[in-house]
């Protein structure tokens, strides 16, 4: 098969021939996934899997690579089939087991995602940052009490721990179990900078959304963009607890459309908007 967009063409002038075409296809698929070209990735991994001479040890790799590309294309069933094939061949394949959760979410089955994620925690209970991930899955499934339990288990030394606490208070708000005294104690243990303290203040009843929005507007252009993204999401969640969907919805739309793509608030806003439909 031809790869007109192939970026890295190996031309080893002093080397032998390349007869194991399947491996080349696999390599092209990995390249394509890396540059985000899902169509080329699916084509390359499919060629690798059908060529017949791919080393058996690499076949699960090819299935996982193609599943990643299918997920980007929102082809959930195709991705699921590849994840199933990969785990049949290699039952403890961590990459495939992680992808299964993404497949569940592709099908909009957050409860199943929680169930599929849980063995990852059981396998490595000291990876407490994994509770952050499951906590957000449980939030997505509407299991706020379970999410609260998970966020409470995250190690305080985890990177960006203040956001774990923000999520903890958020799901307690949603569950109706927020204890202001306890929450103030949680927050007092944090070494908060100027941001995201204004968001905590709103959750704890010590500041208004207007104060937080004003604070989000302070800083350089990028800082403001990032803070406004977070303000839109976390304040919208607070509005939803107060059943103020009319105010929350445009804020979530702003978060979905304006947040940096690597901010979890961007995808969380998208999820929440989906639930509001």
């Amino acid at each position, binding site marked *: 098969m031809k790869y007109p967009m192939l*970026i890295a063409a190996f031309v080893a*002038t*002093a080397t032998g021939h390349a007869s194991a075409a399947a*491996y080349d296809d696999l*390599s092209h698929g990995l390249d394509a996934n890396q540059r985000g070209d899902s169509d080329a990735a699916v084509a390359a991994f499919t060629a690798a899997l059908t060529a017949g001479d791919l080393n058996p*040890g690499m076949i699960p*790799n090819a299935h996982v690579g193609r599943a990643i590309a299918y997920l980007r294309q929102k082809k959930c069933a195709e991705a699921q089939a590849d994840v199933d094939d990969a785990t049949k061949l290699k039952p403890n394949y961590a990459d495939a087991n992680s992808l299964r959760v993404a497949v569940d979410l592709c099908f909009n089955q957050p409860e199943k995602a929680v169930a599929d994620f849980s063995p990852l925690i059981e396998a*490595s209970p000291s990876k407490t940052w994994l509770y952050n991930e499951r906590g957000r899955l449980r939030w997505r499934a509407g299991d706020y009490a379970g999410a609260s339990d998970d966020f409470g288990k995250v190690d305080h030394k985890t990177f960006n721990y203040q956001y774990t606490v923000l999520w903890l208070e958020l799901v307690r708000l949603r569950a109706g179990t927020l204890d202001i005294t306890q929450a103030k104690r949680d927050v007092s243990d944090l070494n908060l900078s100027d941001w995201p303290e204004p968001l905590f203040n709103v959750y704890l009843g010590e500041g208004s959304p207007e104060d937080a929005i004003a604070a989000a507007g302070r800083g350089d252009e990028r800082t403001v963009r990032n803070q406004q993204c977070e303000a839109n999401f976390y304040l919208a969640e607070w509005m939803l607890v107060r059943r103020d969907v009319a105010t929350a919805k445009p804020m979530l739309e702003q978060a979905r459309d304006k947040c*940096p793509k*690597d901010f979890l608030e961007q995808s969380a806003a998208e999820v929440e908007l989906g639930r509001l439909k």
Partner: protein
Amino acid sequence: MNRATNKTLLAVISLGGFLLGQPADADDCTLKRVASVDMTIDSGGGVSVPMTIRGRNVDMLVDTGGYASMVTDSLAKELSLNFLRVSSRVRISMFGGLVIDHYVAVPDIDLGGLKADKLLMLVVPEGRLGNEQGTIAPDILRAYDVEFDFANAKFNLLSQDHCPGKTVYWTKDSYAKVPFTISNGGHIEVPIMVDDQSMRAAFDTGSSTSTMSLETAEKIFHFDEKSPDLKAVNADSSSKDKIYRYPFKSLGFEGVKVNNPDILLFPDNVSRMGSEKLIIGMDVLRQLHLYIAYGEKQLYVTAATAH
């Protein structure tokens, strides 16, 4: 991908027992494989190999661009290992500047039949290694010859005790022989041509992509951040520092040429690459059958699928 900025760490980490392999017969030109394991390429593009620690199966990233081998914080805790602080005279940081400041004595290691009673390994914070539980770095690798046979999914360690130059057993066709030096950080460095400009590059199987210092690229290739050829790859991200692609035409070394190499350009304050300005990552390396003769300081290279 971790790099040390002070060589005295060697004294700290060399307390651990070296992995013991089969003794080699000096008069015999046959290559002696001391360990062989199946390898996979993980979803991040890295080389992942199985190992056991105290009988527990773990996956390790093979990282020729590392300095010292590492285990994750969670694995060290699950094994109830005693955390020891790295000497304050030593500073070790990963790509991006994350500081590594603890190490542990890891017991009962078995890597494809190669065993060690105890090995001192650094502790890497969670979330830096994908699904692997540690890395195998040059502190272990350079005691052997190292073979990456990507097409056959095999990672091999071989005795360095063999006839000079008698390493390419997998093909009768010609191959490239590339001399390398070892940097202060223990990395393999090779002279490379990028668009007719000579540079030195580190070979890093722990890096999924090839990367170059943005400042160095601007200086050598005479462009700046306003160049229309320079494309930011993270414009939508939260980072205030942009990472770029530039349309390089070729990258080559001793019989190997890569057309249109995909090299990410990182500002130095983001990558904290130190003296290394160009890293050749897995996007290029996985296209090769790579035999690293650490003893001879030679790379033997063919296409990955040559036989």
